Structures are given as structure tokens and as C-alpha cells.
């Protein structure tokens, strides 16, 4: 299986190539309903997780709600 380099939350990581965003979240064991994703500084809309394909060099931020004041 070929792999590609992407930047995930500020760190370079190798992930399987030709993943959709939904596939990536599954690969990372994250519940898509509990996170939000920014891809190359653009919000990845929730209803597009199935169709967005992750490409080499993508910069992804995956965030969630944590305690705060």
C-alpha cells in the first residue's frame, strides 16, 4: 500500500494514499460527529467528508471542544 505525507495537527504523518476525509478519520479512530476539520486553511464541511480526497502535502487541523473559560 502506498503512503503519502500530510501535515496533521502540525506534525508530518504518513497515511495510506487515496483516503477520503471520512476514511482518514476512521483510520485515526476519531468519531466524525465529535470533531471539525480544516483542510489547507478551509473548513471541510461535514457533509463533504465522503467526497473530500486527502492529497499529499495537505495541511489538516482536526479539532474538538475541550474545557475552557
Amino acid at each position, binding site marked *: 500500500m502506498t503512503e503519502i505525507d500530510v501535515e*496533521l*495537527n*502540525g*506534525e508530518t*504523518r504518513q497515511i495510506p494514499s487515496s483516503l477520503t476525509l471520512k476514511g482518514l478519520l476512521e483510520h*485515526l*479512530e*476519531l468519531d466524525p460527529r*465529535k*470533531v*471539525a*476539520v*480544516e483542510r489547507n*486553511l478551509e*473548513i*471541510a*464541511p*461535514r457533509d463533504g467528508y465522503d467526497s473530500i480526497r486527502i492529497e499529499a502535502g495537505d495541511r489538516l*487541523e*482536526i*479539532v*474538538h*471542544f*475541550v*474545557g*475552557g*473559560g
Partner: protein
Amino acid sequence: MTAQTQDDAPLVVAGRSFNSRLIIGTGKYETYEQNARALEASGAEMITVAVRRVNLSDPSQPRLVDFIDPKQYTFLPNTAGCFTGEDAVRTLRLAREAGGWDLVKLEVLSDPKHLYPDMAETLRACEMLVKEGFEVMVYCSDDPVYAKRLEEAGACAIMPLGAPIGSGLGIQNPVNIRLIIEEAKVPVIVDAGVGTASDAAVGMELGCDGILMNTAIAEAKDPVRMAKAMKHAVIGGREAYLAGRMPKKRYADPSSPLAGLI
């Protein structure tokens, strides 16, 4: 006999109604479980939350939303850690996608030593967010001029600090807070500085529409009990404000009649 005292009207922020005038933060608790119990004891219906990177090395870490249900409580995503309008917009766009709602808390801080808001940048960020369709509750200094500017920029609530964030010093400048309340047509909520129940009551007695606090509850020895105390303090302060206090006098005035003494 006068008619029975009417119940207080709800707090209305950006068209949403809340029976509780207390808003609590979700930071600094020992666990999310303790946080959830404190929230229940406080009676608050709105909580502030932060937006942060998911820990990818341990996806099984406990998650806030597994303890506090976003369907039951109004989550107010904040911009803590943002120092520019652009940072704030970027963070809240992600929050909107994560949560699916537009009500947010804007805070643009300056120096970590005092965490005072950078008001020029806060105002600019508020304008940017309003343009993007957000309903913006704004953490701000206790400056009546800037408070007015924020309201004119479309802020749906003005949230002046009572004292520096996390300091627990109580309301340091009641004169300014009252001036802000007098001028504002949107809710004024004291955000930051409350240390104990009497501080919350003081804020409400000044005529604030609500109080937002985090550390006063989270860092109390018994956070759940302090949450309950804050619930009563906010209600007590609000009722006292609505009732209208007696005038202060320079000398004593006996409570028992002087006539008919034996």
C-alpha cells in the same frame, strides 16, 4: 395585599432565552465528571468551551461532549489563546462546524501576565465575526466607551471583566460596570474576576444581566458546592436588584416602634 411578586423574566441573548443568569466555564476541573456535576448544581444552561487540536496519539482520551450533552446545554465556544481577529475567525469557523451553531464568545487577549483584552483588536474581530453571521458575546475591558463601540459593531452581549481572569478578586470597578449597564441595550454579563458568592451577588445587584465564571467554581475546595452557592448568589443578587435596595443612611433608625413603650 399586593399581587404576588412576579417571577423574573428570562435572560435573552441573541433571541435565545435562559432561565439561569449564570454561565459557567469548563476549564480547570479535575475531571469532566466533576465538571458535569458542578454544572448540574449551578443550574447554568450555558457553558463556555475551548476549541483545541484532537490528541491524535491517544484518540481514546475522555471527551467533554461525552460528559456534557450539547443538546441539553448551550455551548459557547471561545477564542481563548487568539491574539488577532484572523485567529479568532479561524477558530470560530471550526467551532461552528463542530457544533453547528453561531453563538460564540469572543476574547482577544494581550499580555499573558494580566490577560487583559486587546480592545482595538477585539473590536476589529467582532466586526469580522458579525459580518460572517456569528452571534458574538464579547469579553471586554470595563471601559464604557469601548462597550458602546462593541454594541454598535453588532455584539449580542457585552461581557466586561470584573477583575483579571482567574484572579478571584471580585468586581474592582463597580462604577464602570454600572455605567456600561446604563448605556447598553444588549445584555451585560460580568465575565471574569468573581472569587466567591458575594462577588457574584454584587455584580447582579449592580444590574448586570448575568455572570460568567470559571475558576471561582473549578478551584474551590468543593467545586460542586460552590456551584450551588453561585446559583443562589446570582438569584439573590438579581432579586435584590429588582426589589430595589433601601437608601443608605448615616445614622441608626430603629426597626421597632418608639410609641407605646411601657
